[in-house]
């Protein structure tokens, strides 16, 4: 059947193939979940594999169809509309319909291929890996459900549908982490993941609300089309129009001396931050990364699939999806890049100190995710996304390889913790050659050996970090009706990041690359090279007196294994996925090899989708020529890292030491007793690194964990306990609290509330001040600002208009009397700025903003700034502002 046949079955505007892609894993989950126990392991495996495999085939078909339709400039996009889910009322009278709809384009098509393809391999792997587990069918039901949720996340055509998948993958991850839920650690890890992700979800929800409000759409096309609406100043302070003064300037935007309240943050920045909070939760970025390493407590295929290849990259995917929104806010972009960088470095340093093979990989994943966000943050969306794909290959391969090693170790050791401990490994290349080779391939890729996939993706990120620039958007003039007041903002420019930010990111990210290469090869050498150190760890083995831990078992001859099986290569179901992924890890870079082959297949493929966003991303002058010069340090980083690891872990423990024996006898002893050399390194070089790692772990444990998790949870728990003690169980106490509450209510209603709204017009200088209405209120004013109230009598006049000259400051007072004769006085400071075209200049930092404002004034309308001073007394929440004490005046009856 040719392409035309496919198109006639699945027309692009009603693309039911998506239902096949989505439906198969769901069907698999259902069948395995409900009937799995009766079906037996073979049938369950078959069902799960067919479901994901079929989904993969369908994804391939969709992908080819996309290729058929997509041109260089125009993105192909196939949609399937399900049904209308709900209506959300937008800003104004119109309704925003939210559909259950799915779509596939270059971005989501590629991601779907990865998810189903890598997912299929991992399913295959799991059929062997989990073969002896009691919950076999349950495991595959969850795994299929995960694939389904992930596909919903990717293929969803709007944010709410994505959010369903977003929550779904979280739930599946939670279920799978806790799969061996008899273990307390798994249960705790599951909960930690759950709660941390909720913080991220909070951000995503806020972002959705803001998008509804400002853009009026939640589907991808609608958001992209209306994204420019986000370039308006936004009110983030609840009732006032300003931004709190304590916020840093780059959030507040440029400050002009004339306008003491500052220019406001744009909606794009707010949306960007909220979205990024969501992405940071799911993709384990600072400070929300804490859950990911703990989540590795689950079965290894789960770590490979969910916590390395797919789910954790959902945040990156969302960032690419919403690229058109992110580029509108340079502040958000810079934040993303910096957070990504910090995460990459911190996680890499922690990885030095780990001995658990999966922990090293976990921190490495966090670190690599950091790189992806650097890519996003500097505007290299395609490159960041390309790193998602290469990372999926090599990290899945690494995890599966680690799983294969653990599987082999476990056959001997029968202890989960010790079979994952690198100190018990070594020399594994002799026992499991296929695992070794694939693992090596992936290690080379992640460390960035030239021409491997990781080299191309990571170095492209570094290159882009150095050369990319984000255009500073022009913030349009905005206005909104705030109760009775109309407020207008002048056009202006958004905040621009400092120029050398890119260079700093490049330099530090390079350092991270060295660290990556080092710790990955530390892992590789310790696991696969040297001698097997696991012989001692056998049931019934007793250490001789003064015996050491397993990792320095120099007293034993490695050629004489004690009881117990030797580690052996794993079965075909495990090695086949390893080989496939290993090959991809090496060669997938060819898709986007800018450096040597000038191949940019991948960039071209996603470019139409990212076209809107890319138009805001430029590059510094001479970027093309910088490619090679910037590449060399990257290659150097690989060489230094790997070389260092080699020198430390291989050279000094092997042959060179033996040759010393003959030449320098006095050194013989030390060299012979190579563990002392080890210890020396432990003390010095490694010690330093370890200390660094330990410090990072400490920071992780006591600062991030403590601040993010403990302090808040402690505060909540403590206040809960205190409030609990107030629940004494005594009727009187309850009654007294009720009466106190009633008293407070009565007080609020009886005390007059002098709340004032100011409608300001700087041009004409007329400021009208309106006191809030109240039952039985009467007012008297001090309009002329002499400090004396103008009249002795109270009247009904609730509003005065004050005429001010330029630069005049006046303190207007209003006294309110309520029906009981209680009074409250309120002072309102009015100020008319000197804003007269060229009359006086604006101070240095805000020069650009001033020019923008001037040009806007010329082209659009007279520069107008209706200001509004909202006195906050009682205007926020009752009791929040100062509340004047009522003063009884007048005779009592």
């Amino acid at each position: 059947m040719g392409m035309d046949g496919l198109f006639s079955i699945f027309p692009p505007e009603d693309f039911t193939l998506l239902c096949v892609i989505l439906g198969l894993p769901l069907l698999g989950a259902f069948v395995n979940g409900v009937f799995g126990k009766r079906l037996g392991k073979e049938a369950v495996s078959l069902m799960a594999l067919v479901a994901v495999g079929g989904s993969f085939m369908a994804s391939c078909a969709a992908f080819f169809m996309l290729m058929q339709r997509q041109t260089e400039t125009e993105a192909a996009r196939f949609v399937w509309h399900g049904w209308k889910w709900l209506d959300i009322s937008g800003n104004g009278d119109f309704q925003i319909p939210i559909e259950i709809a799915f779509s596939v384009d270059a971005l989501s098509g590629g991601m779907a291929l990865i998810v189903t393809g890598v997912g299929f391999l991992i399913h295959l792997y799991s059929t062997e890996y989990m073969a002896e587990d009691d919950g076999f069918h349950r495991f595959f039901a969850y795994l299929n459900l995960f694939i389904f949720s992930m596909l919903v996340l990717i293929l969803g055509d709007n944010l709410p549908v994505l959010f369903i998948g977003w929550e779904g993958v979280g739930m599946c991850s939670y279920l799978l982490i806790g799969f061996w839920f008899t273990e307390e650690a798994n249960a705790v890890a599951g909960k930690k993941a759950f709660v941390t992700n909720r913080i991220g979800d909070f951000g995503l929800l806020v972002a959705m609300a803001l998008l509804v409000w400002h853009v009026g759409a939640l589907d991808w096309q609608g958001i992209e089309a209306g994204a420019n609406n986000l370039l308006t100043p936004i009110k983030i302070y609840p009732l006032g129009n300003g931004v709190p003064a304590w916020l840093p300037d780059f959030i507040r935007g440029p400050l002009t001396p004339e306008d003491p309240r500052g220019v406001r943050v744009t909606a794009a920045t707010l949306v960007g931050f909220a979205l990024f909070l969501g992405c940071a939760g799911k993709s384990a970025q600072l400070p929300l990364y804490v859950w990911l390493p703990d989540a590795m407590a689950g079965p290894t295929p789960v770590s490979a699939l969910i916590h390395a290849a797919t789910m954790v990259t959902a945040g990156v995917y969302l960032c690419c999806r919403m690229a058109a929104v992110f580029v509108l806010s340079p502040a958000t972009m810079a934040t993303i890049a910096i957070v990504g960088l910090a995460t990459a470095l911190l996680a890499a340093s922690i990885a030095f100190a780990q001995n658990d093979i999966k922990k090293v990989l976990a921190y490495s994943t966090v670190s690599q995710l950091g790189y992806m966000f650097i890519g996003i943050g500097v505007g290299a969306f395609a490159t960041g996304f390309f790193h998602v794909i290469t990372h999926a290959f090599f990290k899945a391969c690494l995890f599966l390889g680690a799983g294969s090693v653990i599987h082999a170790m476990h056959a001997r050791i029968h202890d989960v913790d010790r079979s994952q401990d690198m100190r018990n490994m070594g020399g594994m290349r002799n026992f499991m050659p296929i695992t070794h080779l694939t693992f090596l391939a992936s290690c080379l890729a992640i460390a960035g050996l030239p021409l491997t996939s990781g080299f191309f993706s990571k170095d492209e990120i570094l290159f882009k970090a150095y050369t990319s620039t984000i255009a500073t958007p022009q913030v349009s003039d905005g206005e909104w009706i705030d109760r009775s007041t109309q407020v207008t903002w002048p056009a202006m420019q958004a905040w621009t990041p400092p120029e050398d930010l890119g260079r700093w990111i490049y330099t530090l990210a390079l350092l991270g690359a060295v660290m990556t290469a080092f710790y990955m090869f530390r892992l590789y050498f310790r696991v696969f090279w040297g001698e097997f150190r696991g012989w001692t760890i056998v049931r019934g083995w007793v250490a001789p007196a003064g015996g050491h831990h397993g990792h320095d078992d120099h007293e034993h001859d490695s050629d004489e294994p004690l009881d117990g099986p030797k580690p052996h290569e794993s079965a075909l179901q495990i090695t086949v996925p390893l080989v496939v992924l290993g090959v991809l890890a090496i060669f997938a870079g060819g898709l986007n090899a800018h450096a040597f082959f000038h191949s940019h297949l991948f960039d071209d493929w996603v470019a139409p989708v990212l076209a809107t966003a890319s138009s805001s991303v430029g590059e510094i002058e001479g970027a093309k020529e910088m490619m090679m010069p910037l590449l060399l340090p990257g290659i150097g980083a690989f060489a230094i890292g790997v070389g260092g690891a080699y020198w430390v872990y291989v050279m000094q423990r092997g042959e060179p030491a033996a040759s010393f024996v003959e030449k320098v006898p006095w050194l013989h002893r030390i060299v012979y007793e190579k563990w002392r050399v080890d210890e020396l390194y432990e003390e010095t070089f490694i010690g330093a690194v370890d200390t660094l790692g330990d410090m990072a772990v400490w920071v992780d444990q006591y600062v991030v964990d403590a601040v993010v998790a403990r302090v808040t949870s402690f505060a909540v728990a403590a206040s809960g306990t205190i409030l609990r003690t107030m629940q004494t169980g005594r009727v009187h106490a309850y009654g007294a609290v009720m009466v106190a509450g009633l008293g407070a209510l009565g007080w609020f209603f009886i005390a007059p509330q002098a709340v004032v709204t100011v409608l300001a017009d700087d041009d004409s200088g007329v400021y009208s001040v309106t006191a809030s209405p109240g039952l039985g209120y009467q007012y008297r004013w001090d309009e002329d600002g002499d400090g004396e109230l103008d009249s002795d009598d109270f009247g009904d006049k609730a509003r005065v208009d004050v005429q001010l000259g330029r630069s005049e400051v006046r303190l207007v007072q209003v006294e309110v009397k309520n029906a009981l004769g209680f009074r409250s006085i309120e002072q309102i400071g009015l100020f008319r700025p000197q804003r007269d075209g060229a009359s006086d200049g604006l101070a240095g930092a805000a020069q650009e903003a001033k020019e923008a404002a001037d040009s806007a004034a010329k082209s659009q309308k007279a520069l107008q700034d209706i200001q509004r001073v909202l006195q906050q007394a009682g205007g926020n929440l009752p009791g929040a502002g100062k509340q004047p004490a009522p003063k009884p005046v007048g005779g009592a009856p």
Partner: protein
Amino acid sequence: MIGAGNVLFVIAGILALAGALITVSSRNPIRGAMGLLATIFGIALLFLKLNAQFLAAIQVIVYAGAVVVLFVFVIMLLGPDALGEVGSFPKGKSKVSRGIGGGLLAILAGVALVLLAGRGGAHVRFGDVQPDHGSVEAVGGLLFSRGLVAFELATALLIVAVIGAIAVARGKQTKSHLTPAQRGDGEFFHGTVVARDDRGRPPSKGDG
């Protein structure tokens, strides 16, 4: 000038206030019930003064005849246990209690006086009313015309009260208090819920 009507108001008011104070302050609930009775009569007199003959009658019949009698009946049923408050008020911690009570009373009464009188406003004098204002015919006619709906709703209320009172109170009326050990509920013997019980009652499996 102090006319007969004014005397009636003063007497009835004092009767009501004194009764109320006795109700809330007497240690013996029987005396409290008598205080309540006085208040009820005082208010019935005021009703008469306000041309509310029908309500005055109802007030006496229902409150005095039913409610207070019910109170007295229960107090008698409980016997000396009805005193209830050993040492809390007015003995023992009485100074604090009385202080708090008196303070609250003073504050709330002051607030009530100040607010309710509509400070500074002119006093509203009663005008003339129709001769049948507050008569049985007037109120009754209203009850069975416009107020019929509410009247019907009240039937449901009375049914609920009857069923409920029977459901809650019926059963053996012997004075067989559960021992402290039995006071825990069979429902709640699990885990920390019982541990929180500061009386240290061991859990009971029975359900009374």
